[in-house]
């Protein structure tokens, strides 16, 4: 039994498939990059630069081909062997920071941080984030909360607010209330369409 209330972190790779490509080719670092689904059907990963061009998640390739050519978007077919390998590395680093890691998808994992003293959780998350970045080259965001849903929400807030430095801790009730007032209901995991 832990002396602290339950706490989870949700850590995920930013534009994960695109970030995997960027690890091996730094020329991709400041240009828009997208990765297409199997058989080059539609966009399944977009960097911030690609999102800024208005490329939507799941947008069919034939509909955005001209836009991509006109804006110098670097387009990749998916390379799951590479993404799976990078995902393993990232999770291997997570396991050094948390005793229980639940792999939720290729780029998202829940970490049980219950045993970590509440005041040091954000610091641990920042340390983990910089270690993942240095060792694997993958940029991540970490959200911390008393439930998995709130951890996911914290992760969403960390992503949308760069001034947080990629880490958002919502275990504190006052802090949680402050942030939740700014979030639309349908942005919460499991609520609204898709």
């Amino acid at each position: 039994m832990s002396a602290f209330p339950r706490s989870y972190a949700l850590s995920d790779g930013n534009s994960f498939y695109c970030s995997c490509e960027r690890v091996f080719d730094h020329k991709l670092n400041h240009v828009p990059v997208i990765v297409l689904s199997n058989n080059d059907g539609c966009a399944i990963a977009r960097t911030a630069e690609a999102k800024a061009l208005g490329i939507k998640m799941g947008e069919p390739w034939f509909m955005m081909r001209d836009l991509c050519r006109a804006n110098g978007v670097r387009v990749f077919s998916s390379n799951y062997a590479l993404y799976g390998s990078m995902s393993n590395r990232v999770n291997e680093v997570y396991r050094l920071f948390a005793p229980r890691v639940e792999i939720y998808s290729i780029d998202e994992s829940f970490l049980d941080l219950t045993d970590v003293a509440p005041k040091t959780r954000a610091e641990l998350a920042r340390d983990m984030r910089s270690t993942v970045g240095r060792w694997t080259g993958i940029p991540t965001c970490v959200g911390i909360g008393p439930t998995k849903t709130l951890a996911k929400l914290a992760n969403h807030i960390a992503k949308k607010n760069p001034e947080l430095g990629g880490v958002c801790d919502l275990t504190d009730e006052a802090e949680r209330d402050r942030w939740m007032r700014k979030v639309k209901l349908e942005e919460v995991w499991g609520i609204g369409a898709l």
Partner: protein
Amino acid sequence: MHLIHSSVRMDYLGPVAEGSIILPRVATTICAGFPSPADDWIEDDIDLQKILVTNRAATFMWRVQGHSMRDAGIFDGDVVLIDRSLSPKDGDVVAVSVNGEVSLKVFRRNGQLEFANKDMPAWPMHENADIQVWGVVTYCLHIPRA
């Protein structure tokens, strides 16, 4: 064609597999009858994986193309293991990304980077180049056979 004045080119090969590459340290034969007098001195087999890879999550294998690292014992076609978790020290061979192109250089304490080939002119480090250390070379696998 390889341009002798250019940096080595690097191709990423893949991650290092989990598991072990075990080589027996001593060859023993089974003998019926008298117990082997060597039994008390048997040591564990050598696990090459453990020797070559200390941090699997951060270790990447690349193939080297080119001759600019010859004097550091890294030749065209060799495979190098690169550990991204290490901080480079003076004299280390590092993989660097120069304007997005990954190559090998010798790292110097003052941040200078050098070729390791005395037949080549000094590597021209451009002031405005975007240079990032990608990782530190920990091992070089060279096939000496003709």
